[in-house]
């Protein structure tokens, strides 16, 4: 087969005035603007584009479009590019894949002589034993893996995402799809028309028929004048619940790819039909092509497919291709009509080209010299989007293809997928489908708007669901041409022959879903678009059944493969910072991300920060601390319901610690709540629990106690929160506070006061402390946070004030033995395990988790305890196991560990079995290194100042 560029064709899409130079396996080539990589190479006489996956057989053009399994190439650092679809660009560096050392001389082609060993399940059977050799097998097999090379240094490319809500999405822009889009648009619907190809027009694009071309021109001009949004080189890759569609756009001007998420009110599925290859001996020899390939090569790119052709076919497509071939001077050696008993049985020639076709016709076996064989065996209906909508297409043996069965009423099929007809018939069906889609979309739109309480009122009643009154398309009879009396390739991507499938069926893999997985047929880059029905036919034949009986595989998303980049899209992960953040950034902060928050971890030396807080005074930005403003007469009842302890008698100005458990008794959150006024409370939650607790509160109020008068407002970010901690904190606060008596008698531990701080009114502060020092937790209207922070810093220079970060706070809370929910507790830690069992008041009438906590009270539970390693210099890893002696029996684990700069020793919290919880118990900790160390459970959670004298000061 020698292909060559011909004179100008009236239908061609190339611009011969624009020459593009590129490289193919290092050699210089040129093509024209509008060429695909494959058409440019074919025009230059190239016949071999790739080597097959297993046997490394030379492969040439088969379909010359997106689905062509033989045209996968590497372009620069971009692997697995479809040369049948990707447009040629100037300067492209195109290389063949899966070849070594070169496309023309491939050593692994020796595999083909091993063909009878490389049958179905070869890898499964051969490389199972001995198991210890698997790593070696894997390394060797990996070098045989097909596909391009991923360059790990490839710069990140920009991918984009878009959301859209059109009334009607039309998938497929052939004549039926365009008519559907136009009719829907004329009926007032907003329409998105998606074309898989670079130009709209479907099969009309490569038809040389004058009437077809006139129709195409008319459709394009009407479409251009409409307000329909047209996406070319884009694919509807998936249809999900309620017509949620994934669309990948490959020709976006800026982004490499853009993933469009569309919520369509109705979806029109019009992908046309895909030509199905025929299975016979030598059907993968370069030179065997589909009629579509021949017509595209001739009419779109002016490329003559060969010098002498045999055409085998059973439909009008075969008839049409004869005229096109003759026009460009390809001699027609023979036309074999598949509607008669005549068949082709094999091709002959070298591994690189067809030289003759063996025909079994009326005159008996016959050899016909030819360099190209065009095979029109019928079509595959790409029903993928219908499958994804829940439809199970039905096989019609008289038409030799699958048809839609009963898709949901907001998904409508048209075009070749729905049936056969002449061009006018397809256009009429398309237009009727578009009108129906628009009418149903209008009903959906009415319902969506009417069911939105705050949307503008909708005029009139909801339109009735339009009945489907389309005149159905006919079905042209077609012989069932799947396999000749010889065996050949079924799946060219995966090198699976009909023999492999028969063997698989005989081995018991005789359901199509099993055979597919066992042989990997249909699992290659063509995603079954070419292979599925031939696979089913091979299985049916092996089982002696019909295709209907065997059924087909379920097509799942994506319709066409898409890149991980397109799926990942553009990163959009907002972060939160406090109003004090600029100060941190200007002061050598090391940031840690906690959920969405960026928080100061430390400012250089966390141990020094700890010592400064214990000696002088420190400031920490604790803005992410969850804060819920609670107002109303029933707040105490709410607190009693959500916390395990009692709240009915908390006085104004008082603060109390509380623990929350879920209904299963597991610790959910903890924090303090203060009573700011008669009916006004402020609840604090853990930073990570802020969102969840708010939802929890709303759930109880809205669903269990809707009669209670409580109003909840989340104010986490309305206040900047600063903890002022250390023995000199009162002195520092006295320099900036007005309107509050800071004296220990007037403002004791666990109370709350409102004050003006550094001139900022409306601040409140409570005397609590996670650090164990005298401390004031100050909450400042957020806009003034930075000002108050700076005022504190400026006022306390002589006191040694310094900032401290989360790490220092974590060390100090561990010194004090305060547990952190989610760190020292887990999803099974019941309330009493925290050592706070005495908080749980089972005599309350009701509270969340009460029954479980009541039953837990009778059981011995794992306990959170403070642990000190015997060697003060060893800090066990967090999550290190506590084991029994020299065994691996797990008795607990270290949940928090740090080196304490205050005590100059390692300190831990851990969870241990109940019988290890008593102070003085010796335990064994198994380190990650495998070393076992001794440690001792201590009497209190607090390693430091167990009496709490410092914080009450």
């Amino acid at each position, binding site marked *: 087969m020698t292909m060559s560029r011909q004179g100008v064709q009236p239908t061609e899409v190339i611009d011969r005035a624009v020459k593009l130079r590129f490289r193919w396996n290092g050699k210089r080539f040129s093509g024209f603007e509008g060429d695909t990589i494959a058409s440019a190479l074919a025009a230059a006489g190239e016949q071999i584009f790739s080597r097959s996956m297993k046997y490394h057989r030379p492969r040439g053009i088969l379909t010359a479009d997106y689905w062509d399994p033989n045209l996968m190439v590497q372009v620069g650092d971009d692997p697995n590019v479809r040369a049948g679809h990707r447009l040629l660009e100037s300067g492209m560096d195109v290389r063949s894949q899966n070849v070594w050392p070169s496309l023309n001389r491939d050593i692994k082609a020796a595999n083909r002589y091993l063909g009878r060993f490389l049958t179905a399940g070869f890898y499964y059977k051969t490389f199972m034993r001995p198991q210890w050799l698997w790593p070696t097998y894997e390394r060797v097999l990996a070098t045989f893996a097909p596909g391009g090379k991923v360059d790990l240094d490839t710069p990140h490319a920009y991918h984009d995402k878009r959301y859209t809500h059109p009334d009607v999405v039309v998938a497929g822009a052939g004549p039926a799809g365009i008519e559907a889009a136009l009719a829907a648009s004329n009926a007032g619907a907003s329409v998105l028309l998606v074309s898989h190809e670079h130009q709209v027009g479907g099969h009309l694009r490569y038809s040389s028929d004058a009437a077809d071309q006139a129709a195409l021109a008319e459709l394009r001009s009407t479409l251009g004048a409409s307000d329909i949004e047209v996406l070319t080189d884009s694919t509807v890759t998936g249809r999900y619940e309620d017509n949620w569609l994934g669309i990948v756009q490959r020709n976006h001007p800026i982004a490499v790819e853009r993933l469009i998420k569309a919520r369509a009110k109705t979806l029109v599925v019009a992908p046309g039909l895909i030509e199905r290859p025929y299975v016979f001996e030598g059907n993968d020899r370069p030179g065997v092509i589909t009629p579509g390939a021949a017509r595209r090569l001739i009419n779109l790119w002016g490329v003559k497919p060969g010098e002498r052709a045999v055409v085998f076919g059973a439909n009008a497509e075969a008839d049409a291709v004869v005229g096109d071939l003759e026009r460009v001077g390809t001699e027609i050696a023979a036309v074999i009509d598949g509607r008669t008993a005549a068949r082709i049985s094999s091709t002959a020639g070298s591994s690189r080209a067809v030289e003759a076709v063996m025909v079994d016709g009326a005159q008996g076996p016959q050899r016909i010299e030819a360099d190209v064989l065009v095979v029109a065996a019928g079509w595959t209906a790409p029903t993928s989007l219908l499958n994804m909508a829940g439809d199970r297409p039905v096989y019609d043996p008289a038409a030799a293809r699958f048809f839609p069965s009963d898709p949901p009423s907001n998904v409508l099929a048209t075009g070749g997928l729905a049936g056969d007809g002449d061009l006018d018939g397809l256009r009429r069906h398309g237009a009727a489908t578009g009108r129906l889609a628009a009418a149903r979309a209008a009903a959906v739109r009415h319902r969506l708007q009417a069911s939105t309480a705050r949307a503008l009122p909708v005029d009139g009643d909801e339109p009735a669901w339009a009945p489907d009154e389309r005149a159905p398309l006919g079905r042209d009879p077609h012989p069932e041409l799947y396999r000749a009396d010889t065996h050949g390739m079924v799946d060219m991507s995966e090198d699976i022959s009909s023999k492999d499938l028969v063997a698989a069926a005989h081995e018991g893999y005789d359901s199509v879903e099993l055979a597919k997985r066992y042989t990997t047929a249909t699992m290659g880059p063509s995603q079954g678009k070419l292979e599925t029905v031939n696979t089913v036919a091979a299985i049916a034949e092996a089982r002696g059944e019909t295709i209907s009986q065997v059924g087909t595989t379920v097509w799942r998303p994506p319709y066409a493969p898409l890149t991980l980049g397109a799926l990942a899209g553009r990163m959009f992960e907002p972060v939160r910072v406090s109003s004090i953040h600029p100060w941190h950034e200007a002061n050598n902060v090391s940031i840690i991300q906690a959920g969405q928050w960026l928080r100061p971890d430390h400012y250089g030396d966390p141990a020094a920060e700890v010592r400064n807080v214990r000696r002088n005074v420190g400031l920490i930005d604790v803005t992410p601390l969850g804060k819920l403003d609670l107002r109303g007469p029933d707040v105490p009842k709410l607190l009693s319901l959500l916390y395990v302890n009692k709240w009915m008698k908390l006085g104004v100005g008082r603060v109390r610690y509380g623990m929350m458990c879920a*209904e299963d008794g597991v610790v959910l959150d903890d924090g303090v709540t203060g009573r700011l006024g008669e009916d006004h409370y402020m609840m604090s939650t853990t930073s990570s629990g802020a969102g969840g607790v708010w939802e929890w509160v709303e759930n109880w109020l*809205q669903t269990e106690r809707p009669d209670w008068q409580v109003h909840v407002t989340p104010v986490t970010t309305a206040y900047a929160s600063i903890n002022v901690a250390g023995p000199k904190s009162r002195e520092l606060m006295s320099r900036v506070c007005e309107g509050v008596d800071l004296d220990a008698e007037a403002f004791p531990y666990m109370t709350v006061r409102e004050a003006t701080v550094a001139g900022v009114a409306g601040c409140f502060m409570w005397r609590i402390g996670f650090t164990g020092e005298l401390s004031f937790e100050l909450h400042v209207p957020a806009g003034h946070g930075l000002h108050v922070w700076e005022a504190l810093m400026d006022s306390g220079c002589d006191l040694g004030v310094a900032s401290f970060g989360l790490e220092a706070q974590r060390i100090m809370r561990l010194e004090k033995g305060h547990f952190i929910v989610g760190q020292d507790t887990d999803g099974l830690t019941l309330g009493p395990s925290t050592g706070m069992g005495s908080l749980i008041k089972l005599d309350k009438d009701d509270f969340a988790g*009460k*029954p479980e906590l009541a039953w837990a009270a009778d059981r011995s539970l794992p306990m959170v305890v403070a642990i000190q390693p015997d060697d003060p210099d060893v800090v066990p890893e967090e999550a290190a196991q506590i084991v029994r002696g020299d065994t691996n029996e797990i008795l607990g684990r270290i949940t928090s560990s740090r080196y304490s700069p205050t005590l100059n020793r390692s300190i831990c919290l851990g969870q241990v079995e109940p019988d290890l919880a008593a102070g003085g118990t010796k335990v064994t900790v198994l380190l990650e290194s495998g070393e076992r160390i001794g440690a001792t459970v201590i009497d209190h959670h607090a390693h430091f100042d167990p009496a709490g004298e410092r914080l009450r000061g």
Partner: protein
Amino acid sequence: MLLVTCPNCGPRNSTDLRYGGESHARPDPNTASRSEWRAYLYLRDNPAGWLRENWYCASGCRRWFSIERNTATNEFRDPPLPGDKRGGAA
């Protein structure tokens, strides 16, 4: 992706809401047996068909509501008033 109709905010992507699971009444914590309480915690009917379930309009009005969904077809019916989470569904 499922469209879920919030009584306040109208139809929204299900990712805008939090799924609260099957609606079920909370037993009296003072009289419930262990098996009753644990059925409330862990046991769900999970029918193929109509099911009353709870949703929280997390990215919208932040109201809990209950609605009936056909788990076989994903049809919804009769969105009640917000907060009516467990009403009539026990």
